[in-house]
């Protein structure tokens, strides 16, 4: 056991946890004033509920050696998960350190979907949906890509910190959600504007900071690979933020802070699967291009198809994640990570195909199961609030709380 590695992984777990409140403010600032608490509440309740789900069953389902579909319940309630390292995953840190680090990923992934159904989902339905989604979509997919004996892992899929497991996964669920729930009422007459842009910026800052734990922590050791992940994560975010600002400057006349923040987040998403496999120049390319793809997804494709992905969870996380996963298949190099593989640009085009397959499997599995869960929840509880509640705002109607006072 290595104390430096353990310290780094524990800190990283804390950093990743911080990303969920960061996301809460990132999304919270984007919604209308009357709904900000509902977004914060959804994020925080996930932190509570999914933490418990994770330690009771989630970790076992996700990371116990695969029984085919998932890991099964051999580690129910963390039975058998102690403080000696579990070498198959991380040989130099206590097993529970790995568990709690991964738990933070399980918490933030469903929180990403909030961006798709913001401002119109019933709280009770949201709770049930999230619990079912975590258990039947996140946990199996996690097992396939990262679990010992997971079939995508065995096929050689490269996903360093969660491009597929987290971002494409949540992104597709977001798209399905947005379509199933339908558009917010009066969208064309009452174009929603972010009610608190400083929150969005603050949220972005917390996300960027926390992402160092997300990516560099996924090296599971305080070593050169972690440093590589740190450096390329930071660089990709920077390139993508700049790229989005430039695109806006050229297309809309002025660069906006919202654009830089969106770009930075897109860059962080895209570098996530690649962070432990690519070097800094590819990171810049990945960052510069992700903003192009996500910008198109958000400003061209979304209006064209008309789905109301309120806060662009699909446009940024799914599109960014897909680009990142495929870019990993292009730019991965064993010079960076000997335990990884070479990508297409380094003489191994097969890797690109493996990545493509992984992306495809994720899209299909997540899309279908998310839809099934939605239909089931809708049947028994009803997922969308009634129109009057939506107009009044979720803070008042779902939580009987108001975020801001007027006089004092």
């Amino acid at each position, binding site marked *: 056991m290595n104390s430096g590695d353990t310290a780094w992984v524990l800190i990283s777990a804390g950093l990743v946890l911080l990303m969920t409140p960061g996301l809460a403010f990132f999304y919270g600032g984007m919604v209308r004033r009357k709904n900000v608490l509902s977004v914060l509440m959804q994020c925080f309740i996930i932190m509570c509920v999914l933490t418990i789900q994770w330690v009771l069953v989630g970790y076992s389902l996700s990371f116990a050696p695969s029984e085919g579909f998932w890991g099964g319940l051999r580690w129910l309630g963390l039975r058998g998960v102690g403080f000696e390292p579990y070498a198959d995953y991380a040989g130099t840190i206590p097993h529970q350190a790995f568990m709690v680090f991964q738990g933070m990923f399980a918490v933030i992934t469903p929180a990403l979907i909030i961006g798709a159904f913001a401002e119109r989902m019933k709280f009770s339905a949201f709770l049930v949906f999230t619990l079912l989604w975590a258990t039947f979509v996140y946990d199996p997919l996690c097992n396939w890509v990262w679990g010992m004996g997971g079939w995508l892992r065995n096929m050689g899929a490269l996903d360093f910190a969660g491009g597929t497991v987290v971002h494409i996964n949540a992104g597709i669920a977001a798209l399905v959600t947005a379509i199933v729930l339908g558009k917010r009422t009066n969208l064309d007459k009452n174009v929603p504007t972010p009610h608190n842009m400083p929150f969005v910026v603050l949220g972005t800052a917390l996300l960027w900071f926390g992402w160092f734990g997300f990516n560099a922590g996924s090296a599971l050791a305080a070593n050169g690979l972690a440093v590589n992940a740190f450096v390329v994560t930071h660089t990709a975010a920077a390139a993508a933020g700049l790229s989005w600002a430039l695109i806006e400057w050229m297309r809309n006349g002025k660069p906006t802070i919202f654009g830089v923040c969106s770009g930075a987040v897109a860059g962080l998403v895209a570098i996530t699967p690649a962070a432990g496999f690519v070097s800094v120049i590819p990171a810049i390319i990945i960052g510069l291009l992700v903003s192009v793809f996500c910008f198109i997804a958000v400003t061209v494709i979304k209006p064209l198809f008309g789905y109301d992905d309120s806060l662009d969870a699909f446009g940024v996380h799914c599109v960014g994640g897909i680009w990142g996963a495929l870019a990993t298949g292009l730019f991965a190099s064993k010079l960076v990570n000997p335990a990884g593989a070479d990508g297409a640009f380094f003489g191994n085009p097969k890797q690109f195909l493996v990545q493509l397959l992984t992306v495809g499997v994720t899209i299909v599995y997540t899309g279908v199961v998310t839809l099934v869960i939605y239909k089931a929840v809708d049947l028994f509880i009803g997922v969308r609030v009634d129109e009057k509640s939506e107009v009044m705002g979720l803070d008042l109607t779902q939580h*009987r709380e108001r975020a801001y006072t007027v006089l004092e």
Partner: protein
Amino acid sequence: MKLVIAIIQPYKLEEVKEELYKADVNLITVSEVLGHGRQKGVTEVYRGAKENGNLLRKVRLEIAVNDDYLEPTIKAIIKGAKTEETGDGKIFVLDLKECVRIRTEERGNTAIG
């Protein structure tokens, strides 16, 4: 010329605006206020969480109209805002002595609409 001041439920603003546009009333000022009626804010925790002093969030509209637009404006506001529950709001009508369009310095009835 009249000045119409209406206090309405905040969530009714969009509907009231729609009705006003339909009545060809397009000039409007909107502000956020606090207030309560005879119930002193007690019955309305669902539609508007209470502020200090039992005051609830309301929206105030101010619309300057020519005399022949007064009734249509009042009817439009009622149509958009009425729910038959307490807290629907009130409309006040004041005599308006003068109205000036700053850009062109027009006065009177032409400045109003």
